[in-house]
């Protein structure tokens, strides 16, 4: 079942790239990277919402699966944030010939990446898998989320050199973008689901040793 989900996600992504580069091509060639940059940035943010929800869920119920889902979401989110920043830098290099300027959008994307990185490091360095370490990661997940909306979304609403006021007007372009978006979100869901079940099996195996 999970294989199917991932395959479908990749199909959608390939379709979006094909349409985007052929029919829905944006005039200056390098701007086509937006077909990848936008979905990934949305997904990076969505994954952090998942981290928040699962962290709150773990603190409320104490069930281990919430905590594992939080780890999986953080890992997937980290991958998306890395892509987000990489394509962002490539885009700004192509657009303004500079790899990085501290414009609000780039700064907030970098902060999002750092939040993921620190979450994963915290997850690894807290001793043992017992409940207290999981609880502390959940606490960090929640407090870190407070950083994201304060900065990330507010950065959206002010004029900013980062995003030329450009919209995907033609139907082909919007179609390509939507396909890309759907593909990335499906990919995220698949990755999280796969990783959570993997973590659960490893945990079950390791806990057998304790019995």
């Amino acid at each position, binding site marked *: 079942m999970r294989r199917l989900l991932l395959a479908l996600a990749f199909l959608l992504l390939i379709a979006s790239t094909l349409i985007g580069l052929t029919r829905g091509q944006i005039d200056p060639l390098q701007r086509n990277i937006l077909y990848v940059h936008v979905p990934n940035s949305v997904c990076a943010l969505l994954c952090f919402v998942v981290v928040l929800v699962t962290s709150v869920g773990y603190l409320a119920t104490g069930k281990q699966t919430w905590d594992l889902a939080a780890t999986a979401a953080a890992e997937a989110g980290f991958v998306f944030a890395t892509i987000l920043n990489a394509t962002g830098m490539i885009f700004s290099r192509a657009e303004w010939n500079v790899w990085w300027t501290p414009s609000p959008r780039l700064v907030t994307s970098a902060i999002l990446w750092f939040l993921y990185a620190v979450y994963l490091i915290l997850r690894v360095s807290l001793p043992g*898998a*017992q*409940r207290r370490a999981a609880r502390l990661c959940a606490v960090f997940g929640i407090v870190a989320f407070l950083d994201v909306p304060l900065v990330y979304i507010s950065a959206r609403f002010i004029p900013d050199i980062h995003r030329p006021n450009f919209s995907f007007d033609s139907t082909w372009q919007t179609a390509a973008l939507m396909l890309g978006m759907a593909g990335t979100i499906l990919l995220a869901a698949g990755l999280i689901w796969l990783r959570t079940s993997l973590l659960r099996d490893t945990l079950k195996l390791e*806990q057998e040793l*304790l*019995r």
Partner: protein
Amino acid sequence: MAQDEPTSAALSVRAVSKTFVTKPVLRGIDLVVPAGEAVCLCGINGAGKSTLLRVIAGLLRPDSGSIAIQGYEVRREPEKSRRQLGMISHAGMAYPELTVSENLAFAARLYGVPRRAERIEELLAGTGLTSYRYDRAEILSRGLQQRLAIARALLHRPAVLLADEPFTGLDAAATQDVCTIFDRFARDGGTILMTTHDLRLGLQCCRRVAVLDQGVLILDASKDRIDTRRFLDDYLSYARTMS
């Protein structure tokens, strides 16, 4: 006050169980201790004695079951139940940098004890620490630190006193002092739940014995109803035969 148990039960533990990751440490413990009684909880290392004490004190959340001190449920009314509870653990809970009276003054403020100075004097005398009043806690001997811990635990006149291995590391004289303090506390209507390895001392101080084995209470009887001689020889096998 809405209380389901009779107010006479100072401490009532109902079907408490606790599992660490996969190891069940407490499996459905029931223990009711009326006021003025001292219970000695015995068991091998890892039987769950300290865990049970920490769960009763509210420091550890039980997976299921409920604990009430003087009728106040520990998880639902933490402030009221903690006011009725004093605890002595291996660690003395005293700040090494502070002097004996400063430590007691700090604890008195935490618990909001009225007429602090007077109460502290009373406890210093009761535990024989008056002459060490201005010494810093770090230089005290193990016996004196234990007496400071007891003074700190009794400061706010708790109804229930929990003692986790109170006699470890004490010489004969210090142990005797601790025992007399416990007796006086029990005679004044206080309730004691104590864990110990040294059964002879446990029986000397307490009138009731409970044995915990693999997370289950396999024996809970007052001293005069059990054959103390055989019990002292090998309490585990004896307790197992009785359960």
